[in-house]
């Protein structure tokens, strides 16, 4: 054994830190804009690039993958080097990782604004970006495992296991959820349809929360909280127990996003049971964190960064209690599709993720700049602005959700819906939407103050780019250690494989039967594939992000069937490449909108929703009336869908343009008869064709019976 001298790479940590600040402010600003558009639709400036449906994914991906993502990398690169007593495996890979990730973010913002989206929530980016994400993620993984392999510390601390689990699981989730068939440079179809697609998407979506917003943050907590409080974690054994239970259980809970939908019932129930069990490991982590601070509460009172950590842990506890509650079917029946879910995720995102990132930044930046924080006072102001911001954000939305959820379900004594006009229930909650925007603005202003404070801190110090360190070199072990987990903690690859197995079990048990057993998705004879024009209209619906406000899933409740019509069946979606069930009803469900209104109604409504629905907060889509439809892309799309299994006849693709034009001419003729002058080349015609088709296959069935 000999002492080796080496250095830690702080520059990469700093770079990820700056990226965290930049993208945090960007992503939150876009979120604020979206929040304002919900009561002042004109704030979308009536351009397609800033309309709600397109900026919503920019906001969600921006805060999750750009803000939180960079914060994770910053924290992992800092803590891993020190816990393993080694510099990152390769400076070059670190740089490629950093610049690769930033380029992906820029490319995502541009393409999402242009409407290139696959519509899978939290994975909207189109296939070229998906590939880039996987490549950069693998580079991160190589760099991480390289460092683990050349480490000078035999045993891996709990933070490292959380990082390893994060790495493997995110890789598996992202790849499975992104299997697409490209149609052109920026358009593709997922290979799954309908129910299966929904299951894959929420298996991914839920576990993005688990393995991007939770496990890395628990790892970060286990490193930075002891550092800040200067005492070890409360219980190391508890950390092991909650680590394994958490990663095992989390993966099963995805279907709780699809309760009362057309998903097979046993899958739904599996999701419910495992969601409830999830409280235990989640609270295990929270309690372990809070108890670490026992005896250090005087420090909490005087140190804003510890205050951030305490609120972060509290919000984690609240969100992970609320999650299982929302998974109970009775609660879900009321809360689902309302703003409750939006409030729920923001308690997690603003409280748990945001506050922990702020706490770490306040601790870390002065350290690597070998100085003290520029102003503790400002960080304290930031803390209170942020806390107020969360309260002003969440409470009005909970209120809005209860008010609107109850209004949707209220019947008159005569047995008709009391608020038959959906818009009435929207207008009722607009004041709450305004308060929410105030909350968001408060939170954002806190972040801007922090950025100022940290920039000043950097200016007054000097970056220790390569921090000197020394440690004993690691000799190969000769003696066999007692204790299974102890041995495991020095075998990173085996550890990764075990973690992988733990997370694969849940996914397989849920998905295999749904994919393999045909009885799980009963087919309906009258459900036919979309026509070429309807496919084009559907792709416009996807491009404009209509599913950000509209669902296509009528649940089997009296209040829903009375409002929207017959409830939705699994067999109705078999040709839906990608499913468009949506997750939030800012506007009414559209699954049975077909034939509800004349074509002219839709034409006027899309030109300006307030023509048909005074006071509507739906954005106007005037560009659909002037932009030309890309008819030439039709055969390619039909061919791709045929490959995926839609039963079009063999030469259908070749005559699909002709077919589309024929259908378009009919709609144009009908519009003309109603004093609307347009021509069949416009995009609006395709969208109308699609909307008029929605949900009608089953209506036909009912008529003929």
């Amino acid at each position, binding site marked *: 054994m000999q002492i080796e001298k080496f250095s830690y790479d702080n520059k990469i940590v700093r770079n990820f830190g700056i990226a965290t600040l930049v993208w945090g402010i960007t992503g939150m600003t876009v979120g604020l804009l979206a929040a304002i558009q919900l009561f002042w639709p004109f704030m979308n400036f009536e351009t397609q690039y800033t309309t709600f449906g397109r900026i919503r994914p920019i906001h969600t991906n921006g805060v999750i993958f750009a803000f939180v993502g960079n914060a994770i990398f910053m924290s992992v690169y800092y803590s891993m080097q020190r816990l393993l007593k080694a510099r990152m495996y390769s400076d070059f890979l670190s740089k490629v990782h950093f610049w690769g990730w930033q380029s992906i973010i820029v490319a995502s913002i541009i393409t999402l604004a242009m409407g290139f989206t696959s519509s899978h929530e939290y994975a909207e980016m189109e296939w070229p970006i998906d590939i880039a994400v996987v490549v950069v993620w693998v580079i991160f993984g190589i760099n991480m495992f390289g460092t683990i392999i050349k480490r000078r*510390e035999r045993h891996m601390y709990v933070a490292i296991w959380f990082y390893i689990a994060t790495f493997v699981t995110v890789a598996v989730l992202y790849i499975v959820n992104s299997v697409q068939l490209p149609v052109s440079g920026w358009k593709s179809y997922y290979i799954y349809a309908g129910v299966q697609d929904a299951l894959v998407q929420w298996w991914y979506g839920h576990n993005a929360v688990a393995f991007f917003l939770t496990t890395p943050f628990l790892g970060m907590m286990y490193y930075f909280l002891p550092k800040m409080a200067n005492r*070890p*974690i409360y219980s190391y054994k508890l950390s092991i127990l909650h680590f394994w239970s958490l990663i095992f259980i989390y993966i099963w809970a995805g279907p709780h996003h699809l309760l009362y939908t057309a998903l097979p019932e046993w899958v739904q*129930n599996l999701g419910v049971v495992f969601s409830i069990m999830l409280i235990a490991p989640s609270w295990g982590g929270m309690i372990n964190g809070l108890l670490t601070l026992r005896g250090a509460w005087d420090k909490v009172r005087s140190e804003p960064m510890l205050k951030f950590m305490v609120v972060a842990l509290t919000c984690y506890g609240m969100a992970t209690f609320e999650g299982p509650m929302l998974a109970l079917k009775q609660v879900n029946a009321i809360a689902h599709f309302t703003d409750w879910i939006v409030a729920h995720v923001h308690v997690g995102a603003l409280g748990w993720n945001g506050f922990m990132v702020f706490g770490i930044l306040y601790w870390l930046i002065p350290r690597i700049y070998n100085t003290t924080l520029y102003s503790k006072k400002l960080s304290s102001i930031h803390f209170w602005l942020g806390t107020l911001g969360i309260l002003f954000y969440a409470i009005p939305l909970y209120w809005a959700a209860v008010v609107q959820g109850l209004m949707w379900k209220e019947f008159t004594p005569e047995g008709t819906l009391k608020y038959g006009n959906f818009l009435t229930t929207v207008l009722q909650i607009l004041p709450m939407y305004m308060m929410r925007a105030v909350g968001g603005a408060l939170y954002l202003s806190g972040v801007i103050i922090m950025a100022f404070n940290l920039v000043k801190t950097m200016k007054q110090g000097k970056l220790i780019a*390569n921090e000197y360190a020394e440690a004993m070199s690691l000799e190969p072990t000769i003696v066999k250690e007692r*204790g299974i987990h102890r041995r495991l903690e020095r075998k990173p690859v085996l550890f990764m494989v075990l973690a992988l197995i733990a997370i694969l*079990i849940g996914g397989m048990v849920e998905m295999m039967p749904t994919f393999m057993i045909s009885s799980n998705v009963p087919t309906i004879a009258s459900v036919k594939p979309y026509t070429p024009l309807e496919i084009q209209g559907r792709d416009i619906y996807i491009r404009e992000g209509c599913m950000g406000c509209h669902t296509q899933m009528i649940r089997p409740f009296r209040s829903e069937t009375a409002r929207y019509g017959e409830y939705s069946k699994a067999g109705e979606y078999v040709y839906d490449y990608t499913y468009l069930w949506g997750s939030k009803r800012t506007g009414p469900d559209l699954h049975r909108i077909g034939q509800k209104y004349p074509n002219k109604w839709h034409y006027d409504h899309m030109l300006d929703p307030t023509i048909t629905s005074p006071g509507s907060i739906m954005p106007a889509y005037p560009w659909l009336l002037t932009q030309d439809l890309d008819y030439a892309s039709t055969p390619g799309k039909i061919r791709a869908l045929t490959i995926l299994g839609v039963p079009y006849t063999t030469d259908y693709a070749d005559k699909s343009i002709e077919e589309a034009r024929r259908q378009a001419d009919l709609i144009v003729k009908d519009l003309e008869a109603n004093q609307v002058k347009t021509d069949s080349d416009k995009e609006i015609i395709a969208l109308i064709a699609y909307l008029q088709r929605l949900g009608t296959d089953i209506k036909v069935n009912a008529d003929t019976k």
Partner: protein
Amino acid sequence: MFKQITNLNGDERYLIFSLLMFLAFFIIVGIMLFRMKKDYAEQMSQMPLEEDNEINKMDTENL
């Protein structure tokens, strides 16, 4: 609430199977923890606190 879990027209086998699997998994982790030495756990939890010393504050350029 329990009716949700038991009334599944024969599909409860998936659920019971899944729960049993978790139980087995949980027991294995439990045994591992039970057999873990206390001083080892102590030593592991000290890890993040270890590397703080004066030397760390230096940039290699200044050496």
